[in-house]
């Protein structure tokens, strides 16, 4: 039994991306460096032997995924679960949170121009975002960030895989505009208003902050 085989067995049996140091826990003979060597070896072996799957870096870990060209065959099977797609508002909200994290709901709403508590909550329910802290200021608003499930959902290895602002046609300003001026003509969200969501969400937040806030980076 060599290291590559052990790593392969672990990757095969896992249904979520695994980090190299996590894989290394499987045996005393393994450490992070050896696992990374084994991963590279496996990656090359799968490529050379034209397997239908490949070793992909996702969400700061490694996972066996089928190659995209086999999608048409796999999609015919009801028994193969397909990840559900996000709605337009959900994608838009997620994009804002991904680029501005940690960010509060009120700021998300200001950027989108529409109320977003429902979307934020459903993204949280799906594990794509989580509370990562509390902001300064009135009501100490909950701040959200993306999770590793977010990276998995989009197949990003890390947040660096997000489209870079400099590649985009217009320039995104660095800082959120909230609180900049006192009489903001276009502001329509009262930042002092603590919503029921937030009142009820306090416990959740505490849990998230004191405990393992999760995978948000």
């Amino acid at each position, binding site marked *: 039994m060599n290291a590559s085989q052990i790593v392969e067995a672990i990757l095969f049996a896992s249904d979520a991306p695994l980090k190299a140091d996590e894989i290394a826990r499987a045996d005393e003979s393994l450490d992070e460096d050896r696992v990374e060597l084994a991963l590279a070896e496996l990656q090359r072996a799968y490529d050379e032997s034209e397997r239908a799957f490949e070793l992909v870096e996702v969400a700061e870990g490694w996972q066996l995924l089928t190659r995209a060209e086999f*999608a048409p065959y796999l999609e015919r099977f009801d028994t193969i679960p*397909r*990840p559900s797609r*996000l709605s337009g508002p959900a*994608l838009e909200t997620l994009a804002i949170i991904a680029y501005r994290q940690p960010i509060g709901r009120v700021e998300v709403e200001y*950027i989108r121009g529409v109320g977003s508590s429902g979307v934020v909550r459903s993204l949280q329910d799906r594990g794509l975002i989580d509370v990562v802290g509390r902001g300064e200021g009135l009501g100490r608003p909950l701040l959200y960030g993306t999770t590793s499930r977010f990276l998995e959902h989009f197949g990003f290895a890390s947040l660096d895989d997000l*489209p870079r602002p400099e590649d985009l046609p*217009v320039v995104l300003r660095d800082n959120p505009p909230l609180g900049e001026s006192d009489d903001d003509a276009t502001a329509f969200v009262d930042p002092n208003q603590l919503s029921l969501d937030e009142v009820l969400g306090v416990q959740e937040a505490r849990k998230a902050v004191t405990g393992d806030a999760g995978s948000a980076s």
Partner: protein
Amino acid sequence: MGRETSLFTAREGMLDIDIERFQGPLDLLLHLIRTQDIDIFDIPIATITEQFLQTVKGIGPGQLDHAGEFLEMAASLVRIKAQMLLPRHGDEEDEDPRAELVRRLLEYEQIREITDRMSVAETERARRFSKGWVPPRPRAPLAEAELETTWDEVLEAALRVELPVTSDRGHRVTLRAVAMQDKVKLILETLQAHERIEFSKLLRELDRPEARMHGVMTLLASLELTRRRSMYMRQVAHFSELWLYRRDEEPDEIESEVSA
């Protein structure tokens, strides 16, 4: 101008759809600007406001959820329009009233661009399959219950409380269940005979281990009867005797004194 008018007539038929189609007022504004090749840094605010207002008029009564956000933006546009008419002091610091709106529009446009790209990434990722995808376990939904407690809930919770039977471990001790109904009956019957009764009298002969349970149930019964307006309670001072009073038809003059 003529071009704009014709463009707008053409769109009038789809005013209802607009609200559905656009993510929000910023999306709609961007659409108006981009489809008419308007310079975003020099928005003809009067024209855009006019068009925006016309579109907003198309919001049906079934879309009132969204209406507020569009109306808010309409109000902002009107305000900017008014500010544009005011003479400015030529001060460098005096910002163009449109500046913040333009900034938001550009920012929103960029977010839309990112959203599109993320959507492509999502599609790409969906074409690769992992070995069994486990859907995330949904969190327990946050209860949307009202933040208040009713008497029934208090009673229900109280009735669920079980006293620990520490010393009786190993024995087969049958705790006599103390029913609140029994206590209710006892109180009502007592009050039929007497106009008032001390709370302690209702418990007087109970000095056994279950006494506490009887005390609790008697108090709960009293509270319940008070709630039903069958009786009322009075206490002159803290820790003084609690009196249970029969409640007659017109307890007006006493009611103001009731503190329990």
